[in-house]
């Protein structure tokens, strides 16, 4: 059933939570711009897939937007310098990751000029009717997106070029732009929609052109009316441009506010009623889903030629004096942007990157902002929960009722604790999107999401070990065969030699027997040995004799020989 121009009805997803959005803290006011930091630490792996490989050397002077790490392999994304300066080091530095482990970063000392590298936009800005958009081919735009290092900014961090490429090949008829932003506190998409709606619309047109989708839907939660209005006005503003390039206009639909409506699978289910097949992709049902910030970044890459070097970050929480949205260069240390926003150090309880439902606690604040940083939440005591120790599970099934994927967290928890990895896969643990609803509603305060992450990792580790063991077995068996073959070859050679020897001896004996008939036929064993000894003594004597052919030497040669003799004796 394809969707007609206007959506007849909205579907809904099971479970989910009614959360206090707490967005009013930071959704007013313009997008501030952060100062240029003194030092930039740009991690080389800010995306899913192979990390980028550094192309600059220590000491190079680089300009803003210049490539510092090119992509490796099919699924990878390049990394660019977010300000001009000199590369002072390429080493392992702390990066925002729950493990607190370091990763390879390019360290740039900025010179403050912030000079842009030569940017090559594909289309010029001053083209009101956007006629020349026709001239552009889908491949050109995709290459530009790949070259600009654009990744899914909704949190998935999947290189967008690869995703668009596969979507273009498959029959994708619906493009969904995810502007739901269901996590509490986070308002960076909201700020973008209010302040730069035209960038978003043009970005969407570009993506629609690449993917060749017939319909385009923007899903936005109904708790952001101002953003909805700003986007609708922008759509009417670009009415003619939209009609120019696609039959169906861009529809913007308000979905009910319920966490996790912003999940890719949940938004698809709400807008189209379709379900993404398990372990499959939205493309399998002809849909592709992109975050709204990613669309705006595509606009910047194509229309302004700027790679992805900065990001809008919401800085909010009880301990922040003035919560706001700030455009920050990637690589800036979080400590600097917190100082800029102003935070009351004595009332800090938790510092979290991302939202309170799916974000993680930062190991330290001297870590850089990366492409994934959409929000820094600095909470005051009492604002976020520090749950008491977990009590045993009483199987009340509130978690199962709240699970948007209708899984059974209480059973999965039971088997995760018992490390029964087959049974937990029977309960489809890999369909869990780690949204946190089950941990939220659990009356015994059990950290269910951490149990499920732990179980998933254990299963992956098991598989990796299984493959390693199989490989080791194959190598071992191959080695056994090789040794077998070598032993056989050696035996073969020994047998051949013995045969040859026996044949030779038979001939000798036969010759000897032929010479003096009356010699005893069976020469006893001892005689044979005597003969052998005699023979070898003769040979040695003969060798000894012509060891030193020094008869007709010239005078000079003779002196040299004596010289060598003396040296040899001395040693």
């Amino acid at each position, binding site marked *: 059933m394809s969707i007609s121009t206007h959506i007849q009805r909205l579907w809904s997803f099971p479970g989910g939570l009614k959360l206090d959005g707490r967005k009013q803290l930071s959704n007013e006011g313009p997008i501030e711009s952060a100062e240029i930091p003194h030092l930039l630490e740009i991690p080389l792996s800010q995306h899913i897939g192979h990390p980028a490989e550094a192309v600059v050397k220590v000491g190079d002077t680089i300009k803003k937007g210049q490539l510092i790490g090119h992509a490796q392999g099919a699924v990878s994304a390049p990394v660019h310098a977010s300000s001009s300066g000199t590369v002072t080091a390429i080493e392992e530095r702390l990066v925002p990751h729950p493990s607190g482990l370091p990763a390879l970063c390019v360290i740039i000392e900025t010179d403050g000029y912030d000079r842009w590298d030569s940017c090559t936009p594909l289309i010029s800005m001053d083209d009101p009717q956007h006629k020349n958009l026709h001239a552009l081919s889908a491949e050109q735009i995709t290459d530009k997106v790949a070259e600009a290092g654009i990744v899914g900014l909704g949190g998935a961090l999947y290189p967008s070029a690869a995703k668009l490429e596969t979507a273009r090949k498959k029959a994708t008829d619906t493009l969904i732009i995810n502007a739901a932003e269901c996590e509490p506190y986070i308002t960076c998409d909201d700020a973008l929609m209010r302040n730069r709606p035209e960038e978003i619309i043009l970005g969407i047109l570009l993506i629609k052109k690449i993917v060749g989708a017939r319909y385009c839907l923007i899903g936005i939660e109904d708790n952001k009316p101002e953003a909805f209005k700003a986007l609708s006005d922008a759509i009417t503003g670009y009415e003619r441009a939209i009609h120019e390039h696609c039959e169906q206009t861009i529809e913007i639909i308000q979905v009910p506010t319920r966490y996790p409506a912003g999940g890719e699978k949940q938004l698809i289910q709400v807008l189209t009623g379709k379900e993404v097949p398990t372990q499959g992709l939205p493309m399998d049902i002809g849909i592709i889903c992109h975050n709204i910030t990613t669309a705006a970044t595509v606009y910047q890459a194509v229309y302004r030629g700027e790679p992805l070097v900065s990001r809008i970050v919401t800085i909010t929480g009880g301990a922040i004096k003035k919560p706001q949205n700030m455009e920050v260069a990637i690589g800036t240390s979080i400590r600097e942007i917190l100082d800029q926003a102003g935070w009351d150090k004595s009332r800090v309880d938790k510092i979290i990157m991302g939202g309170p439902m799916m974000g993680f606690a930062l190991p330290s604040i001297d870590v850089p902002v990366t492409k994934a940083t959409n929000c820094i939440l600095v909470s005051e005591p009492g604002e976020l929960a520090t749950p008491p120790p977990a009590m*045993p599970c009483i199987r009340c099934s509130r978690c199962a009722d709240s699970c948007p994927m209708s899984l059974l967290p209480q059973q999965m928890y*039971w*088997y995760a604790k018992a490390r029964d990895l087959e049974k937990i896969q029977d309960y489809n643990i890999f369909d869990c999107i780690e949204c946190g609803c089950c941990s939220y509603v659990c009356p015994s305060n059990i950290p269910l999401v951490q149990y499920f992450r732990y179980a998933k990792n254990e299963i992956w580790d098991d598989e990796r070990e299984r493959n390693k063991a199989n490989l080791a077995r194959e190598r071992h068996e191959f080695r056994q065969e090789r040794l077998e073959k070598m032993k056989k070859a050696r035996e073969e050679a020994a047998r051949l030699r013995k045969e040859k020897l026996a044949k030779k001896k038979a001939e000798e004996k036969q010759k000897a027997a032929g010479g003096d008939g009356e010699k005893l036929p069976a020469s006893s064993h001892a005689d044979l040995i005597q003969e052998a000894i005699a023979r070898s003594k003769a040979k040695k004597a003969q060798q000894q004799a012509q060891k030193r052919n020094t008869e007709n030497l010239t005078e000079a040669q003779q002196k040299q020989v004596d010289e060598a003799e003396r040296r040899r004796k001395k040693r």
Partner: protein
Amino acid sequence: MSEYFLLLISTIFVNNFVLVKFLGLCPFMGSSRKLEVAAGMALATTFVLTLSSASSYLVNQYILIPLDIEYLRTITFILVIAAVVNFTEMVVHKTSPMLYQVLGMFLPLITTNCAVLGVALLNVQTGYNFFESIIFGFGAAVGFSMVMVLFASIRERLASADVPEIFQGAPIGLITAGLMSIAFLGFTGLDKGLH
């Protein structure tokens, strides 16, 4: 016909072989650690029970009574059961080697399993005819299997329960079996009531 149905109900629920008559406890406790193993064991026991119940009736009716050597009943029954068990062992070994490897120790045990011998002897004692003895054997087996599978599923869940150290494994299994038999006492008097 309702009389056969009543016999079946009373053998399965009212005087269940494991929980009320306490026969066949060693395979019940021994191979109920995992559900698949318990199901395999239950299947094998059902096969053996029904077959040996029928064949022991025939042997008794057409060999022991005519030759009036009833005093040899127990030995011949054991012989019959041993034959049936060996036959089953071969069938299981052929059909699912995995089950055979896992059941390994318990399959010959069925020979001396008191439930199997119990059925054969009870058949003769209560004077069931051929069809009734098959129903009785089958009912006993279904009762045994049902309780075995339920018990195994509970024990599998108890495997990761926070049971105190000294009670883990068999002790908690026996307590659970005790509670199950008390629950089954709820069925007492059902067959008299149904009459």
